[in-house]
């Protein structure tokens, strides 16, 4: 083996030693989740007490009416992740309660999306109330070859299914092909006022996909009223306060994960600055983003359009998706990677997924039985 001190021996050791990872402190500890022991064994048959603890936790989790969303605590054994590492996720989605136990103020999660759903309705056993896990038979997990990475072909397949459902419910997602190449991306545009109320698209006489930005001459505010979720009449809003959001889901071949690009502009074409975008991020996510530099919003060049967009950095996506996928595999349910991923990262930047994505997928599933 040669534990030599020569360069080669050093190199071999260097390249095979496990990467040291920084462990982020958990956001908060749900009362029913026990803190795992610090150095868990890497193998499945560890000391009985540890294993028992995990079983207990898993059983406890299933019984609760709602699940702690994308916070995945504890150890992830084997596949994909560095052995023995533990981590907790910084983004929480679909959790109607803030870490302090108080209900989240409205502002995110409008329009019947997951975050606004009440925890009162019990979830069917296979269905997790957290990030919208669309179950999908026939999409084998092994399609994600090689250490949980998402291959580009598989990415396109997941997107196709996602868009199919989007078309069914009129959620506005569509696929755009790149002009010079075989790749492409998912795209959605929606309009929203500063206070978070959605503006239905039919009030804009021209459908989006105008890269120059929406034209406010097309918007005649005398013709409609804006409604909040409670059907209160909010009243007319000046055109200047309506913001056009554009979301693109691209595939990063370097990190082998999807990446969310987005930009926002006022109707007169003026783009929002990073500060204005940041001001729109909910307080709850803001605090967490500031702690976790990997999920910072930065301005970058869109790799296909070449224009400035904001991006949620993708380098840790694989970590949180891996454990999500591991858990779903243990439960013997297959998921649509894109649906799950987007339901985690989207709400941070004002993009919510209606619950029907998951429901529809499991209905499709049932039909296939």
């Amino acid at each position, binding site marked *: 083996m040669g534990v030599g001190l020569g360069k080669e021996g050093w190199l071999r050791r260097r*390249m*095979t030693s496990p*990467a040291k990872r920084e462990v982020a402190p958990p956001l908060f500890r749900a009362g029913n989740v026990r803190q795992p022991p610090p150095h868990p064994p890497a193998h499945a048959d560890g000391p009985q007490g540890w294993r028992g603890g995990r079983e207990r936790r898993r059983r406890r989790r299933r019984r609760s009416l709602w699940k702690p969303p994308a916070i995945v605590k504890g150890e992830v054994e084997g596949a994909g992740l560095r052995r023995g590492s533990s981590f907790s996720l910084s983004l929480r989605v679909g959790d109607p309660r803030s870490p302090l136990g108080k209900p989240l103020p409205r502002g995110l999660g409008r329009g019947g999306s997951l975050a606004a759903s009440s925890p009162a309705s019990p979830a069917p056993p296979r269905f997790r109330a957290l990030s919208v896990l669309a179950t999908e038979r026939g999409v084998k997990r092994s399609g994600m070859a090689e250490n949980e990475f998402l291959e580009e072909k598989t990415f396109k397949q997941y997107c196709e299914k996602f868009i199919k459902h989007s078309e069914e419910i009129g959620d506005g997602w569509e696929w755009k092909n790149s002009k*010079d190449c075989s790749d492409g991306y998912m795209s959605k545009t929606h309009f929203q006022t500063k206070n978070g109320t959605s503006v239905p698209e039919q009030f804009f006489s021209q459908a989006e996909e105008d890269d120059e930005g929406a034209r406010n001459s097309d918007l005649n505010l005398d013709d409609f009223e804006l409604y909040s979720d409670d059907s209160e009449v909010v009243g007319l809003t000046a055109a200047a306060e309506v913001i056009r959001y554009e979301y693109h889901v691209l595939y990063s071949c*370097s990190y082998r994960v999807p990446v969310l690009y987005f930009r926002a502009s006022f109707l007169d074409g003026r783009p929002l600055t990073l500060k204005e975008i940041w001001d729109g991020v909910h307080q709850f996510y803001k605090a967490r983003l500031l702690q976790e530099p990997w999920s910072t919003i930065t301005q970058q060049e869109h790799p296909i359009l070449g224009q400035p967009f904001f991006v949620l950095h993708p*380098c840790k996506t694989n970590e949180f998706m891996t454990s999500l996928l591991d858990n779903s595999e243990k439960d013997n349910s297959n998921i649509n990677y894109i649906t799950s991923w987007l339901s985690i990262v989207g709400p941070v930047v004002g993009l919510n997924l209606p619950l029907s994505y998951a429901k529809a997928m499991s209905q499709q599933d049932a039909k296939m039985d």
Partner: protein
Amino acid sequence: MTDDKDVLRDVWFGRIPTCFTLYQDEITEREAEPYYLLLPRVSYLPLVTDKVKKHFQKVMRQEDISEIWFEYEGTPLKWHYPIGLLFDLLASNTALPWNITVHFKSFPEKDLLHCPSKDTVEAHFMSCMKEADALKHKSQVINEMQKKDHKQLWMGLQNDKFDQFWAINRKLMEYPAEDNGFRYIPFRIYQATTERPFIQKLFRPVAADGQLHTLGDLLKEVCPSVITPEDGVKKNQIMIHGIEPMLETPLQWLSEHLSYPDNFLHISIIPQPTD
């Protein structure tokens, strides 16, 4: 016969003589003289143009100054591209010095990223390095480094310190003894005529049979239209750091020696000059 390592120095110390002229519509209190500067090929515009900014701001009023941006023959220059790449792509076949126009107004929001401070450049640079290492080593090498090593890479670039930079960067150029190269080669191919800013794909430096892939193999796979057909006329120049490497050069070697400090091979495809 020069040592391969000398190539690293030649690449690092490459310079482009540049003439900065203030845009004629900018409001000045007296006439602005052009400013001449040797720009490092491997650096970024915001890192090396402090003196340019100061020079022009001396003749302007404070209220007429907002974010500085640069343009060449009508094309806004993307500060997040290395200077050498911008030059090769846009101006390599024109006479020196490179004439860049300086603007302080009407920032082109649709074309350029904002650069409020040098920290933005640092974040972008480190992000590129991390992406390159994700391709080369599944991020293992860069994640094992300490924060001070990352800082040393950045300071080495910012202060033009070859030895300081390469003391750390050499680790990113290593690979396991049992492999013949990196996992994938970090590269981007730029062509000014396409809408798409660059082409980047997964490409291994070593074929299944153990043969090293060449630059020609990469181009054939990723953008075959730029390769000259057998008996055809050469339409394009394939340029890295102002030179045209032979298409038979192993890609692994190019990645180790002709990468920019961000560890990417930025390759420009430009039309063959007619003269």
